[in-house]
């Protein structure tokens, strides 16, 4: 559920980010805001960085979520063992 909300928010931001921030939306990367201009600099190398970071953030988020579920399960099992 949380994941769906975050993914939905990311898509909403990607689609309407400039509008949400009060920008009309750039026609091209070069015409955009400071962030867009920075991303478009140095032969677009920061786009590669953004792409790779987005993958790792998503995977780390998923792993943390899974880790939380496993921890809860371990705690429940531990509680039963202690009761016995």
């Amino acid at each position: 559920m949380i994941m769906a909300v975050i993914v939905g928010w990311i898509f909403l931001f990607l689609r309407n980010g400039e509008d949400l921030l009060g920008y009309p939306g750039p026609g091209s990367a070069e015409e955009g805001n400071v962030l867009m201009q920075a991303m478009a600099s140095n032969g677009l190398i920061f786009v590669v960085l953004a792409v790779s970071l987005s993958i790792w953030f998503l995977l780390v988020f998923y792993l943390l979520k899974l880790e939380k579920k496993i921890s809860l399960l371990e705690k429940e099992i531990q509680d039963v063992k202690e009761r016995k």
Partner: protein
Amino acid sequence: MTAVIAAAFLIRIPEIPILYETARNLVFHVPLWFAMSASFLAGLICSIRFLASGKARMDRLAESATVVGILFGIAGLITGSIWARFTWGTWWTFSEPKMNLSAMALMIYIAYTLLRSAFDDPVKRAKAAAVYNVFAATTLPFLIYIIPRQLPSLHPGADGSPAFSDMTAIELRLVFYPAAIGFIALAAWLIQLRTRWLDAQAEWQEIQFEHAGKSGVDSPEYMNKKQ
């Protein structure tokens, strides 16, 4: 994977018009779809094996493979959208068949997870999900590969735009193939990790039911008996 990431950033590539340095994204973006397809294929095999054998573990494996496949698919869509913004000038375009059909394929698989949550009976849930997974897997090659290849598009791999061409640096293939293997291995590890959690959860439910003096309704033994 560390070597792949380092090589992706450090390898020398020729200057390519429009793409420039973003040609390096080939190493990250495309293997995500390979990993997604491999996960969905694993999900299909496990679903068929579940229908044939009735083993609950096969259902759990199929579920994990499908969820991990969806995760890689979402990552593929996000990375593709970022890449498109700086090369095509838009985050999303409805005139690009590969982009839209990939999103449609993901929607079909997201429906798989929704279908699972609609059933209370674990046996019915597993059977319906397995049958649906077979259907979903048959649509995947058409939506991801066959139809986009028939339609003209800017996206490499479409009609009139080969996957490997001047648009994609040949040097990157040296990093691309290890990256594809690495991402598929990463998906396999995530599937295994998630299945272990589901196994532990099933075992835990069985212990709970035994403790309460009942038979384990969601247990593998119960599911196997009901087949």
